[in-house]
């Protein structure tokens, strides 16, 4: 009798013919073992095989979320023993596996838009069988279509960043700690987007803020890094406070934190008033508080700005009821895109220009949510992830090659020395400004069209500010390209003496992101 597996369905053991073959006890070999049996032509129950496969796929959904946490834990606790290369390989491999599982799960869910739930009880029994004393969080993963889009974007971009960082941080003695910090948001963001309740969303929200603080403050001996991290944390907390109040308000109103219950009850007519000596419509107040959370998160400088949009789209059924909240969101998003763009045209630091550009594009996503086009906002988020990651990686390559010089006015003429990086920056910039027909064009054009055809005051306000923001985006993007690559050189001779273009481990993620910056928009356009 073959030895048992953690799976409850004993019919997976496929009959007595398998007695001739040793059956591995570890369940992770179950699926390839079954595939081997099927290829040998032995008869077995196909339904039992599929059932076992599905049980394995259930675990796969959990692994998508928890593999980065495992990598982060290993790098954080055992980095001293594993070394720089060991932690880099482990974290990159685990995040890449998470990305591959996301693609498999998307393939499973997307064609039939099948609703997939992972019951915690089954997994508790399995995990308990594997390792006694494991703590299993009582959460439920719900995987609708858009959630998997987010998972693919997060895990794939993160795996490319991990791969890039192996070489970029090669000479840093604190590389294991960096790889640990890099995997933390890769865990918390999927945790945020896959939850079915406000508590899990809040957990992921706080975790992303923590990860942002840790990464900003990585070089803690630098005073500027300490000041930036110290500023970022309380600004983030202001938004988190708004989010916490919004979640509390929802609980007060609906007596639950479960999204499906809240959305089902939201359509019921009610005149709920939350009184603090002020008469306020409950829905409007709650939605504005939730939006304050998004605003607080977007004040972060960095590339991880997916959280606000994930939260907005996740709570979209509730946001549809108070029109006042939608107008506030549209106006705030449009003003953010405009103000960030005007700030970006005045920056001389290479990374600050791209950071303010990120904030401006985030404004587009927010006002797209404000005009009730949540899927378009997610579409722009996905596109933006590709070309913005490409721009940041290329900028990092330039800065590192120029001996950490970040001022664009002290560069110039680098196109002849960095032809590959220049090509990457050009592709990313053209996609960013919405030049026809790279990726960014398809989402930016749709957002502006939808704002214009809203035929409301807020829609027109967003359209005109968004259009002027496009003008400023084009200006600072080409200013960046010209000052860095095309004008006669203004750099020190010692910097040009040591500079060289990106090595292959840094070039591969850039090439993949460049391909995404060109084709993803057309392939995924709505």
């Amino acid at each position: 009798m073959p030895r048992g597996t953690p799976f409850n369905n004993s019919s997976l053991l496929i009959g007595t013919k398998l007695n001739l073959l040793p059956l591995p006890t570890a369940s992770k070999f179950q699926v390839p073992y079954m595939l081997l049996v099927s290829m040998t032509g032995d008869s077995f129950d196909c339904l039992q095989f599929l059932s076992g496969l599905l049980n394995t796929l259930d675990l796969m959904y959990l692994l998508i979320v928890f593999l980065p946490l495992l990598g982060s834990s290993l790098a954080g606790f055992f980095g001293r023993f594993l070394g720089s290369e060991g932690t880099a390989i482990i974290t990159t491999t685990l995040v890449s596996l998470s990305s591959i599982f996301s693609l498999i799960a998307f393939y499973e869910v997307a064609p039939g838009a099948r609703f997939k739930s992972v019951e915690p009880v089954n997994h508790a029994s399995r995990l308990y069988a594997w390792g006694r004393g494991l703590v299993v969080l009582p959460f439920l993963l719900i995987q609708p279509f858009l959630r998997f889009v987010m998972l693919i974007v997060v895990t794939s971009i993160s795996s490319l960043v991990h791969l890039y960082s192996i070489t970029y941080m090669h000479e840093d003695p604190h590389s294991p700690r960096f790889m640990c910090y890099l995997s933390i948001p890769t865990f918390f963001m999927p945790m945020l987007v896959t939850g079915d309740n406000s508590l899990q969303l809040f957990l992921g929200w706080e975790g992303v803020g923590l990860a942002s603080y840790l990464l900003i403050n990585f070089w803690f001996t630098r005073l500027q890094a300490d000041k930036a991290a110290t500023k970022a944390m309380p600004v983030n907390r202001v938004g988190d406070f708004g989010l916490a109040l919004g979640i509390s308000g929802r609980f007060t109103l609906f007596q639950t934190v479960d999204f499906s219950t809240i959305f089902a009850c939201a359509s019921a007519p009610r005149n709920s008033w939350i009184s603090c000596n002020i008469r306020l419509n409950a829905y409007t107040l709650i939605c504005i508080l939730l939006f304050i959370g998004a605003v607080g998160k977007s004040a972060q400088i960095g590339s991880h700005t997916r959280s606000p949009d994930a939260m907005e789209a996740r709570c979209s059924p509730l946001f549809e009821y108070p029109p006042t909240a939608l107008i506030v969101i549209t106006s705030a998003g449009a003003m953010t895109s405009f103000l960030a763009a005007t700030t970006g045209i005045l920056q001389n630091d290479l990374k600050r220009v791209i950071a303010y550009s990120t904030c401006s594009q985030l404004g587009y996503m927010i006002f797209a949510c404000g005009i009730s086009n949540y899927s378009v906002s997610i579409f722009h988020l996905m596109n933006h992830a590709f070309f913005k990651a490409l721009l940041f990686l290329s900028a990092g390559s330039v800065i590192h090659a120029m001996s950490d010089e970040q001022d664009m006015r002290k560069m110039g003429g680098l196109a002849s020395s960095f032809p590959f990086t220049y090509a990457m920056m050009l592709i990313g910039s053209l996609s960013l400004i919405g030049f026809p027909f790279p990726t960014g064009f398809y989402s930016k054009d749709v957002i502006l069209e939808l704002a214009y055809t809203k035929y409301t005051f807020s829609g027109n306000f967003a359209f005109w500010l968004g259009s002027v923001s496009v003008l400023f985006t084009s200006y600072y993007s080409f200013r960046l390209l010209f000052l860095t690559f095309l004008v006669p050189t203004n750099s020190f001779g010692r910097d040009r003496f040591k500079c060289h273009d990106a090595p292959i481990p840094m070039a591969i993620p850039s090439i993949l992101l460049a391909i995404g910056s060109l084709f993803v928009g057309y392939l995924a356009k709505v």
Partner: protein
Amino acid sequence: MGGGGGGHGESTTYKGFTIHHPKRWHVVTGKSLCAIMWFWVLYRAKQDGPVVLGWRHPWEGHGDHSHEHGHENEVL
């Protein structure tokens, strides 16, 4: 940055200022990707340009079926 195919090619020094020439694969890869980008832009411009510029509705089709002589009057 370490090795792994990085570094630079030959160098040129003029009046104490040295410029390193990039490696051949950097030049080839960069030019190839830019070429792919422009080919894609021009291809999509040919396919979707009239629609983007407002000269044609998206549902009107390309209208370049001159080689199909027997289908001129066919109602689609």
